[in-house]
């Protein structure tokens, strides 16, 4: 610790440059993590809000809940150990019927048709869903909508009245509008006497048996069927993992070069009887110090960015991911530092004496 610290203090500029590299990369990694998590959350917030275990739709829907049609009979025939709730899902484009200037008109949203007494209803609003009265994602308030405002749906006569807002209600990055299932059916089938059909059944608990024309998904599996979700999560994960490995290499190379430069000094130290352990330890501690200082600054920059940018970009902080990434940084940096340790072990103290 002593040697590692003193050298950092002595060769400030040199180490500042190395730390700068770590700062930039760790900033990028943390930022990407926030972005990846934020984007993934905006895909799945509304699904996670169900706090349920499984979802059932028809086999014919081919994993696409919007293309699934289920009947009351299907609902009755499903045996489960727990609770079940019907859901209707369909996308729509909404606009403000008054077209007031300060409201962004035309927004892509998803309509969730639910039963007012079911567990799918957002718990943070206690208004009753009847007729055209809807609870909407608080994302819509950013677009200027307020309680009591009317919403028009493109291509439909239906107008909806906002009676409440709910948090974390986005599905495939678009805001969700919660409405009574009957209203949803009226929109979905464009008639005032719609068939009693809905898209799927969300289950809290265990499914005992279902008919062969239906298929069930765990919520996690279902999320992975959302278009683009897997590709996006995989892309981000690969980027983040590679960046961490690259940092390990860059840092490993830096520290290795520094160690090689100090070969004769380490040789003299060894000749004096200073142990391999102490020298290697101080090289490793130095590596960890460089990473530590770098990622702390990178982390602070990320949090500042999240604070200022989270309205524009879907950034979100996930403490667990941050901890995993931070540990990975340290682990890989330690791995990079091991090159130098092996270099230290190979230094021959013989060369320091005589000649």
């Amino acid at each position, binding site marked *: *610790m*002593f*040697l590692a610290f*003193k*050298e950092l*203090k*002595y*060769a400030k500029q040199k180490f500042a440059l190395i730390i700068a590299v770590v700062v930039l990369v760790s900033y990028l990694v943390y930022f990407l993590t926030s972005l990846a998590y934020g984007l993934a959350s905006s895909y799945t917030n509304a699904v996670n809000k169900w706090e349920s275990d499984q979802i059932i739709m028809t086999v014919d829907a081919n994993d696409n809940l919007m293309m699934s049609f289920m009947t009351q009979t299907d609902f009755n025939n499903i045996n489960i150990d727990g609770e079940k709730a019907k859901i209707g899902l369909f996308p729509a484009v909404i606009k403000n019927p008054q077209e007031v200037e300060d409201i962004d008109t035309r927004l892509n949203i998803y309509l969730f048709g639910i039963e007012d007494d079911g567990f799918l209803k957002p718990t943070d609003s206690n208004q009753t869903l009847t007729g055209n009265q809807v609870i909407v994602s608080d994302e819509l308030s950013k677009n200027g909508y307020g309680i009591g405002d009317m919403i028009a749906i493109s291509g439909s006569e239906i107008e909806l009245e906002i009676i409440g807002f709910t948090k974390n209600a986005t599905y495939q990055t678009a805001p969700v509008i919660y409405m009574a299932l009957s209203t949803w059916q009226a929109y979905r089938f464009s008639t005032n006497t719609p068939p009693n059909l809905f898209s799927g059944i969300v289950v809290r608990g265990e499914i005992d048996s279902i008919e062969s024309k239906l298929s069930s998904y765990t919520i996690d599996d279902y999320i992975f069927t959302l278009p683009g979700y897997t590709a996006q999560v995989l892309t981000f994960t690969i980027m983040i993992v590679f960046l961490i490995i690259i940092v390990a290499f860059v840092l490993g190379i830096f520290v290795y070069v520094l160690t090689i430069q100090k070969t004769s*000094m380490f040789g*003299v*130290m*060894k*000749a*004096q*009887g*200073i*142990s391999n352990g*102490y020298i290697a330890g101080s090289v490793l501690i130095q590596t960890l110090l460089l990473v530590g200082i770098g990622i702390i600054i990178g982390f602070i920059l990320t949090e500042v960015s999240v604070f200022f940018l989270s309205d524009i970009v879907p950034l979100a902080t996930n403490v667990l991911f941050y901890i995993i990434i931070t540990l990975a940084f340290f682990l890989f940096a330690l791995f990079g530092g091991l090159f130098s340790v092996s270099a230290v072990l190979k230094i021959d*103290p*013989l060369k*320091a*004496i*005589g*000649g």
Partner: protein
Amino acid sequence: MKKVLIEMKNVTKDFLQGDNVIRALKPTNLVAYEGEMIGIVGPSGSGKSTFLTILGGLQKPSTGQVFLNSKPFSELSVKEKSKLRLEEIGFILQASNLIPFLTVKEQLVLYNKIMRSKVDKVWMTELFDKLGVEKLKDKYPNELSGGERQRSAIAKALYHNPNVIFADEPTASLDTNKAYEVVKLLARETKEQKKATIMVTHDERMLEFCDKVYVIVDGVLSQRVNA
């Protein structure tokens, strides 16, 4: 009765070169008592380095034994030898063995850090005073002149109270006046603190401060009588 601090008993060193065994060091005996400064001279290639590295425990002798403060130094494991070197030997090397990014004071503190012991401020100040480096204690090696650097190196070598001082060409980079000054200090501390000092040098003028002078030629160590 003076204490024996270094003893080499019938030490030889052989190297394999191809199929031939080359004897780099012929049977060598050497005794150094406390308070004694011993000079070693010899041309390069004479076996001087071999002698030194065996004495310092960096190589194992082919036959014979080295005793350091009555401990069978050459018989110990590499780790134990390292430990004993750290405790029993103070090194003063040619290009000075100061660590570039530590101030003079920190060079000494490093020993405490390694041994997890307390800094002996009184002793440190006394050493700095004796060697005239008190004003330099917060400077880095590259801010010091050659003589100042070697004086600091002596302070470092003496700080942990080793019994033996190893000085390998301590005056190589110094002009005559500075060299005299440094060796004089070294000789004085050897006497005062009852160390055994082994100084290897090219510089014949420095031998006047030595109690005994040995010459090493072609692997044979012999005492120079007229020293």
